[in-house]
């Protein structure tokens, strides 16, 4: 490569490391933490071979294969178990890391005009792109090494050095593959949103393709980069070829990105920019319509996501009973009661997780109001004949509807998939009723967001802390034997655990009243304060 087109690449690489040092640190820490915490917990959960065999048994169905990929279930050691249940998911998250980090320094920087500034300096034409690729390659290598070394250092018998390094390499390799994919798409699309969209689309397509072929014809899974992850069989056959394939694939993508970058103009793309509407449609006529329009894509994505999560919980219900037998920890967590099957006892626990997940999109939807304020776009509304009540009301209404749809979809997914895999399915009204009971608690969260926006917009993040708190105390509360009042500090702690408990209406009514009062306070606060920009 001609040196002049890559002049100053190393300096730019250092600059990017400097910009992203915290971001990179957090991604690496997070990925390693989740990789290491699982085998540690598996050691205590599945110490005997019998327990592991039982686990292998529950894994032996197409739904699980579709979710986490195939594995050698006849030799289900702790190592095999870890790589079977965790590697593919973690690799997908590592891929996501690459997509976001690479987009930041390719298309996003270009779109914001920062690349132009850099290019005006004595810097090579391909330097910025290659600096971004160099940085992400280093991140992938570091991820692979720390992960592999960390797993080996856990000192678990079935997790030897080679398998551990392969595990890490598979993670790093997948991250590298998606760095290549993203670098490629960032040349095609002329905006960051499109780049992330295409890359995540590719990630999902690779995952789903692999899900289908893993069930139907495993050799076809070689066509999906995510299929390569499970083909490594880390801690089993220890096959290094997929990793080699990943690296080759990534570098082919890097080369393609470089070629496309070299032949195109700055700030242009190869995909034709669709020209949009010259007039607003008949729907886009109010603050509410605008709020919806801005969140449409996210709304659809979350709706699909919650349905799938609900369904994936539901899909394991059929094997639940055998899973629980002899599992003391779970029995301790669930405290089964007379007159109910263990599967039914499990419903409230599943619903706590699902309802807390379903609380995320409506709170995001409400918080969007604050996001718009920070971007200085509320003046466009309030400077016209739109009152503050109407503005906040639009976002609030949208959040309230959003929360209901999300909760119901999660519940419906749980019921539908559960019904399909169980011999004797749950009743529809029982599952939906149990899910609906969480709606007032979600309303409290939305109202709390509104109140923060109205009175203390700078502390809006505390709503997320509160949701996270709810998750910790309610999901793990039974395990750690927290005092009741700790759970009751969360609105989710007051929801009747139907069908284990009776469906008590009173706490739900109180929660709704509380939500109404907090929301009203939020509206009053928002009417009184300055709009920042």
């Amino acid at each position: 490569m001609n040196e002049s087109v890559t002049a100053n690449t190393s300096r730019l690489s250092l600059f990017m490391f400097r910009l992203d040092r915290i971001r990179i640190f957090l991604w690496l820490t997070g990925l390693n933490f989740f990789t290491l915490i699982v085998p540690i917990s598996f050691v205590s959960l599945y110490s005997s071979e019998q327990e592991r065999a039982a686990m292998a048994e529950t894994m032996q169905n197409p739904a699980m294969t579709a979710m986490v990929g195939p594995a050698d279930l006849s030799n289900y050691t702790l190592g095999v178990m870890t790589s079977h249940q965790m590697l593919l998911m973690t690799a997908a998250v590592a891929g996501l890391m690459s997509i976001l980090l690479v987009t930041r320094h390719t298309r996003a920087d270009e779109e914001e005009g920062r690349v132009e500034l850099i290019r005006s300096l004595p810097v090579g034409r391909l330097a910025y792109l290659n600096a971004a690729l160099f940085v992400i390659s280093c991140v992938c290598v570091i991820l692979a090494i720390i992960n592999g070394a960390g797993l080996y250092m856990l000192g678990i018998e079935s997790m030897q050095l080679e398998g551990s390094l392969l595990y890490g390499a598979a993670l790093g390799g997948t991250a590298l593959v998606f760095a290549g994919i993203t670098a490629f798409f960032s040349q095609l699309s002329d905006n960051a949103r499109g780049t992330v969209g295409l890359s995540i689309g590719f990630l999902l397509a690779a995952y789903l393709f692999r899900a289908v072929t893993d069930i139907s014809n495993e050799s076809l899974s070689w066509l999906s980069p995510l299929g390569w992850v499970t083909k490594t069989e880390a801690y089993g056959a220890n096959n290094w070829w997929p990793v080699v394939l990943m690296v080759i694939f990534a570098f082919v993508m890097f080369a393609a990105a470089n070629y496309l970058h070299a032949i195109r103009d700055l700030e242009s793309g190869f995909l034709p920019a669709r020209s949009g509407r010259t007039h607003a449609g008949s729907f886009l006529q109010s603050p509410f319509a605008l709020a919806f329009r801005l969140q449409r894509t996210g709304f659809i994505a979350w709706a699909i996501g919650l349905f799938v999560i609900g369904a994936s919980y539901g899909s394991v219900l059929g094997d639940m009973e055998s899973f629980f037998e002899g599992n003391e920890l779970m029995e301790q967590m669930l405290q089964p009661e007379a007159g109910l099957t263990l599967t039914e006892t499990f419903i409230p626990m599943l619903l706590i997780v699902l309802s807390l997940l379903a609380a995320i999109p409506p709170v995001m939807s409400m918080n969007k109001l604050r996001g718009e304020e920070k971007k200085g776009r509320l003046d466009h509304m309030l400077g016209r004949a739109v009152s503050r009540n109407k503005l906040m009301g639009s976002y609030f209404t949208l959040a309230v509807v959003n929360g209901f749809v999300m909760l119901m979809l999660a519940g419906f997914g749980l019921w539908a998939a559960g019904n399909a895999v169980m011999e004797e399915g749950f009743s529809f009204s029982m599952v939906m009723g149990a899910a609906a009971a969480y709606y007032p608690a979600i309303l409290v969260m939305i109202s709390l967001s509104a109140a923060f926006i109205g009175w203390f917009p700078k502390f809006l993040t505390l709503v997320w802390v509160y949701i996270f708190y709810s998750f910790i105390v309610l999901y793990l509360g039974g395990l750690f034997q927290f005092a009741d009042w700790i759970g009751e500090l969360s609105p989710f702690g007051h929801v009747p655990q139907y069908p284990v408990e009776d469906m008590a209406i009173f706490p739900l009514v109180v929660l709704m009243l509380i939500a109404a009062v907090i929301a009203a306070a939020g509206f009053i606060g928002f009417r009184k304060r300055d709009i920042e920009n």
Partner: protein
Amino acid sequence: MDILQVKNLTKKFGSFKALHDVNFNVKKGEIFGFIGPNGAGKSTTIRVLLGVLKATEGEVKLFEKDAWKDAVEIHKRIAYVPGDVNLWPNLTGGEIIDLFIKLRGGNSANKREELVKRFDLDPSKKSRTYSKGNRQKVALIAALSSEADFYILDEPTSGLDPLMERIFQECVLELKAQGKSVLLSSHILSEVEKLCDRVGIIREGQIIETGSLKELRHLTRTQILLETKEPVPELNKQKGVHDISSTDQGITFQVDTEEMDSVMRYITQFGIVKLESAPPALEDLFMRHYEGTKKSGSGAGGEG
């Protein structure tokens, strides 16, 4: 009749006083220029007028209604262009213009099409592809195509090219011909001189000057370049003469407008060979106020 009345407006952010006892008014049918350096409080004042910020003290009335309490009623009759136009990247310019027109409550489709043509905007592009000037056009088209009584324009031309700037000026003069009122905050002094009937100068949160351009010019000095047959003795002793310096072409100095007559009578005695005078420019006045505590008038001179 006053369209806008600002009385003793004070705005504090925490302990920081952004506006201090601001007073001015805009009369029906006039174009009021609002000028001042960056960070002087122009946009803060405008955001108080819009009821987006709440006045700490004082009274702000538009159409004799309270800017804060009656915001929605008032906004049905005003049109606003912000200084920094942030748009939604995934909506097209056309969609945003229509939405803005709808939110105001008025509708004039013909005007919109005409303005889109005049300002040469492609409304089918997503706004993420727009330059600063194009984003400003979106806000301008939405504001100018609405049937408002009062137009609040916050540095509306800072991203426009000279051609578009001229179209903007034509549009503003058309508004004036229709008897509409305009508050124009601007940095481009030639624009203010061309368009505005009266101006207010704000600095460090305080209005330091208001009046018609004619009134304000009285406060400025005329730049004189003079060549005489005989040297002029004791020019520096004459009342109203400042900043004398000699150059190759002769001597230059500044004269206070009110002392012009007596200075002229004095110098004619020495046989004038050449006399050039530059009119007092708004820029001159502006610089003097901007420089604040620095020595006033030093070196500032209008060019023909």
